[in-house]
């Protein structure tokens, strides 16, 4: 069984690192501690029975208002895929609010470059050894982390803060003729 093989392989090697492993709606999920993430990812990438050569997605979830208790406030979620065996695997790494640091997986999958930058600017999670960790989507002077649950949807005033340009003359009378 492929499902069992993936779990067994990881458990065999890194039994201390695994917090939880389960299957939900066919998605295989492994929850990890944050310290040795890079080592486990390298194993998953290079192991000849798994060979997860494709990082589909990397993002984070803020569990501040979640109904079920979670180990920590933030979780970084990796979607892995193996082109050779067609395995799918979701990895969740919990990160406490006090220490928002995690190893970058850029050295394994180049895909992680912009995805980690996006996660950094949206959640404020720092990725160690990332070559170019700066804002990706928002202006550089933007303060705050918009995807966190305590950030208001309508923002904190950036969208109202621009110079106002007006016409050199008032041509409103033209419009009155129109009507």
């Amino acid at each position, binding site marked *: 069984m492929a499902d069992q093989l993936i779990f067994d392989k990881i458990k065999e090697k890194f039994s201390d690192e695994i917090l939880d492993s389960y299957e939900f709606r066919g998605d295989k999920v492994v929850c990890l501690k944050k310290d040795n993430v890079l080592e486990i990812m390298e194993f998953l990438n290079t192991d000849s029975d798994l060979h997860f050569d494709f990082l589909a997605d990397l993002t984070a979830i803020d569990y501040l208002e979640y109904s079920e208790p979670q180990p920590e406030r933030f979780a970084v979620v990796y979607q892995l895929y193996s082109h050779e065996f067609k395995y799918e695997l979701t990895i969740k790494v919990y990160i406490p609010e006090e220490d928002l640091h995690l190893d970058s997986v850029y050295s394994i999958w180049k895909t992680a470059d912009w995805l980690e930058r996006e996660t950094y600017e949206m959640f404020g999670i720092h990725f160690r050894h990332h070559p170019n960790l700066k804002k990706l989507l928002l*202006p550089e002077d933007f303060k705050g982390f918009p995807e966190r649950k305590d950030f208001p949807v309508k923002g*904190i005033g*950036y*969208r109202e803060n621009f*110079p*106002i*340009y007006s016409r050199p003359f008032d041509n409103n009378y033209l419009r009155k003729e129109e009507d």
Partner: protein
Amino acid sequence: MGLESNLNTDGGGFMVTTVDSVVNWARKSSLWPMPFGTACCAIEMMATYASRYDLARFGAERMSFSPRQADLLLIGGRVPIKMMPVLQKIYEQMSEPKWVISIGACASSGGLFDTYSMIQGVDQFIPVDVYVPGCPPRPENFIDAFMKIQKLVENDSVKNYKKPKNNSFNKLWQTN
């Protein structure tokens, strides 16, 4: 009939008109739009320019991608906070007289994106002449807006642009 009937056999003859009507007629029939298309409305804008709807019928097929030679700014699509300075720069670079069409709900009011990074209507920061409703508007809507702009140009007067505000360049050419 028409203008030709006023011609003599040797092609001479003259007609009397006002400067305003001639200038406005020329301006409205050869508007040079600057397409500032960012999102979905830009695709409908493209459709208006392409085979079926063909905006060339209104004398506007010459898209001017340089703002300095354009006189009509077409804002099509969402404008986030990172894009707004660019839009304002482009508006500033366009020479007078200039007109602005705001295409679609997002450019006119923010549309369904009421979020931290979206401008809730570009008319807060730059003047807009004609709004086009729709998300995205159909090409017919867009052509209607275009004809409205032509009407606006037709009713304009050259006098309005005689002394632009804060234009030091103009002073150089004043002799007396």
